[in-house]
């Protein structure tokens, strides 16, 4: 019988509303636990329940890692839509939207400052800006950061978070992989250390250039780190990927990272490495 009358009726219960006044509670993306916002910030956006490291904005990252007195440089370098690239939106429009959303001109900021008293030049990728994609601006700012390191004889630290090369700049974005790798090679030749910190997610053209060329490679826990993304691989091989594939712990096991460091220990660890390696 297809249309049997149900013997019972479903009475919608009034949903018990959990009290979440705007801005007071945060829900963990991973385990769904509600966390008091003050605790969430105190734990540096790491879930106290499941240790999930939520994405940190570039400015928050700076505050967390660098000592006081940070100086941004080359902040005026801006992308241009030299191909007239239009998909569902024009590239110019995408840039404008991203600039409004993030307050940055492009997907990286470079700064001079110190970590635990040790001088560094640091680059912080901003995933909120067009997925942290690498175009001409990122290439140029990394190249200039390396020049600064060589001139001032200070180590380089880059915090990566990127979806890869920026399609809207066509093959020119691919060339930024060559440009940044050539810069890192010069830094290496000059005998100056370079530490990269891989944060969620680090993929594509960034993984296949400066992110994996560091003298010491650190990742936060559970970060997605890959060249080809999981969806592309699943489509290619036609099967589901194993749990934890391409995450920090997986890469450590396969010998592709030096260490996994939780966010709350990152600053101390970086300070120690800088001291032991160079200062």
């Amino acid at each position: 019988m297809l249309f049997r009358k149900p013997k019972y009726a479903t009475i919608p219960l009034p949903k018990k509303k959990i009290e979440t006044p705007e801005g007071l509670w945060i829900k963990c993306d991973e385990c769904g636990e509600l966390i008091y916002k003050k605790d969430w910030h105190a734990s540096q956006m790491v879930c106290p329940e499941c240790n999930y490291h939520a994405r940190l904005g570039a400015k928050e990252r700076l505050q967390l890692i660098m000592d006081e007195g940070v100086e941004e440089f080359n902040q005026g370098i801006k992308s241009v839509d030299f191909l007239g690239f239009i998909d569902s939106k024009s590239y110019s429009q995408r840039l404008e939207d991203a600039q409004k959303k993030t307050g940055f001109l492009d997907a990286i900021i470079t700064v001079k400052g110190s970590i635990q008293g040790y001088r560094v030049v640091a680059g912080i990728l901003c995933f909120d800006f067009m997925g942290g994609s690498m175009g001409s601006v990122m290439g140029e700012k990394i190249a200039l950061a390396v020049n600064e390191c060589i001139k001032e004889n200070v180590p380089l630290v880059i915090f990566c978070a990127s979806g890869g090369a920026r399609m809207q700049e066509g093959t020119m974005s691919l060339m930024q992989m060559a440009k940044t790798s050539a810069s890192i090679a010069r830094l290496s030749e000059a005998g100056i250390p370079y530490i990269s910190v891989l944060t969620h997610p680090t993929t594509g053209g960034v993984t296949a250039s400066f992110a994996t060329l560091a003298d010491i490679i650190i990742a936060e826990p559970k970060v997605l780190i890959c060249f080809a993304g999981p969806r592309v691989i699943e489509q290619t091989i036609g099967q589901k990927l194993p749990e934890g594939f391409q995450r920090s712990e997986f890469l450590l096991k396969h010998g592709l990272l030096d260490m996994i460091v939780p966010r709350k220990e990152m600053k101390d660890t970086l300070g120690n490495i800088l001291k032991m390696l160079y200062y």
Partner: protein
Amino acid sequence: MITGSLPFETPIDELEERINSLSTVSSEKTKEEARQLQKEYEELIQRIFSSLTPWQKTQLARHIRRPCILDYIPRIFDEFIELHGDRLIGDDRAIITGMARLNDETVFIIAHQKGKDTPTNIACNFGMPNPEGYRKAARIMRLAERFKKPILTFIDTPGAYPGIEAEEKGQGEAIARNLFILSGLKTPVIATVIGEGGSGGALAIGVADKVLMLENAVYSVISPEGCAAILWKDRSRTEEAAATLHLTAKDLLELQIIDEIIPEPAGGAHRNYDEAAQKIKKVITRHLNKLKNIDIPALLEKRYEKYQKMGKFIVE
């Protein structure tokens, strides 16, 4: 029907078949007809090939009959000794490496190998290297540097292989390391895109003093199909994506990403392997003769400057 004939090539191929069938008859009348058809054939090629779209060029770059590196090696070089293996894991057949003689001088070759039919395609994984392929290439780069021999690379890949094992072995690092090595390698390097230049998997053997490209080759950060799927969420917009990506040799010369376009035989490299090979040989030889005369520190500085200049941005 000729194998792998592209839709826009069909009239050319049909005419070619008619000319071929006439060549078996040797009367004066048919000879005259053949001459007439030959003329028509050349005009037809000229007409079709003078206005190819970026997507049509992409199809030509991937043409099943397009010559691949194993077709070019015997036609360009006098001798070739293949060298195998990365000394770590295995021997990736998607990248062929070895030593060859060009105009009585030794050069090292690093090239993608795609294959031309199902068995050869499978044997070399459709030209999609795994990390061991890039690490074999890295070993050969160092070898060439040690013995002060120039390197010629030939690019023809849909991209680096996106697979489980490739990721486990560090595909990203393997590519990055080659960019790092090539940017400072103390020997002249010439890269030639002969077919498809598929993203990081192509660039990994493409950082060079001179980057050359065959007329109908393409070189892109992502395939037009991939771009359409990601940006438009619509695979049917592939043609539009090909145009938007600016992936043709002409586009890339204008952007100064490549240094020279090598012309192809009329109707594409697949219509005359010998002629295509001779054209490549001529251009490579000219560049190599110039690069050989530059001392290594100056060569490295020029290579470095060339890549440092790449990028378009404004400074506020």
